[in-house]
């Protein structure tokens, strides 16, 4: 198990990553952590009752370019989108995840893999929050607004100030 710590403006969140079940996804995520991609990024989409999403925007809602290619979706690994798990965000193309991720704040069963088709591939869980669930709970309840094309953007920016690999 690898461990990563997200130091956010609202407190620290420790993620334990499941290398066995989601090897490519974990390697991809660690690559972005090591390169400093997540430093000074936002939780830019917050929906209480669903999830909090980050990893793609800098303060001021400036989209951050990604450096690696999209990865193969490993959602068929048996891990479920339960509360406090972390999963990769993507477009409606199942194999399009790059850097953005989300933390489930509810048991989102409908996001799980059910079949290897575009509609049913699901969203790949690759770890879970082991410390800082209280921080996640604080983030999920912040007030949000619409900002340009984006809905559910926190009124007050929630910043990942730094992300670090605690153990490989």
């Amino acid at each position: 198990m690898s461990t990563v710590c997200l130091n956010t403006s609202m407190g620290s969140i420790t993620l334990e990553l499941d290398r066995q079940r989601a090897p490519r996804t974990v390697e991809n995520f660690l690559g972005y952590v090591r390169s400093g991609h997540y430093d000074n990024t936002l939780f830019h989409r917050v929906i209480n009752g669903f999830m909090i999403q980050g990893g793609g925007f800098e303060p001021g809602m400036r989209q951050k370019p990604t450096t690696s290619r999209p990865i193969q979706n490993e959602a068929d690994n048996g891990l479920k989108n339960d509360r406090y798990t972390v999963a990769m965000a993507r477009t409606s193309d199942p194999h399009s995840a790059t850097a953005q991720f989300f933390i489930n704040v509810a048991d989102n069963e409908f996001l799980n893999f059910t079949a290897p088709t575009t509609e049913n591939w699901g969203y790949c869980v690759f770890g879970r929050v082991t410390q800082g669930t209280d921080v996640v709970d604080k983030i999920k309840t912040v007030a949000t607004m619409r900002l340009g094309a984006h809905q559910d953007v926190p009124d007050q920016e929630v910043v990942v100030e730094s992300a670090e690999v605690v153990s490989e």
Partner: protein
Amino acid sequence: MSEAVALASVRLRDPVFISDLHLRQDRPRTVQRFLRLTERLASGGRELVILGDLFEAWVGDEDAEDGIGATVSGALRSLTAGGTPVYVMHGNRDVLLGEGFARASGAAFLADPCHTVLGDVPTLLSHGDAYCTLDRAYQAFRRRARDPFWRGLFLGRSLAVRRAIVRQVRRLSEAGKQSMAAQIMDVTPAAIEQALRSAGVARMVHGHTHRPARHELELDGRRAERWVLPDWDFETDPPRGGYLQVVGSEVEMVDLA
């Protein structure tokens, strides 16, 4: 929020197929005709199969709690409770029908497409919008609307916000429809043939296009057919609406107007 399971195949004896009723509060005659059909089916030992767009809009299963959603769910509940099975496929308008609706109505969801056998003929059931492949923008929207994460984003919002979004999408879609060539809104024959071929069936029943017809086609040297269900509108003059029924091995279109 949890996703209701949809059947990939279904066994039917004497089904009645309808689609594209686009039921809404301000179409009382259409709603009445639908309720009458359900009453007639109540004693018949048949099955009611709805191939999409039963409702004009569905912004979440809260819609089953009052208004037209509650009326219709209740009518379906009377059928299912009395032993008449009801199957519902999602259309493009009511793609968000969920487990709450299934509980309220007693209906089972069908996957799109769904396999069945009518008479002795293996048949594919579909709403039909997936085969309008020339409409690229619509297909992109369809993929997104059927993506579970998108559904989560939408259903995670308040009911008032969801209704406002649907109204806005409707305005944009109406504006787009007027400027789009009619042929783009119909299915692409090649896409239908591909679906029939890969399912190994010789018949399809679908709705969506509002162009009721029976089309004969030749598929790899064999005869195949495609039935298109009529949409319903009993507020207009002349009114229109009907259903497709299968009695024994005979498929028959019945006009209700």
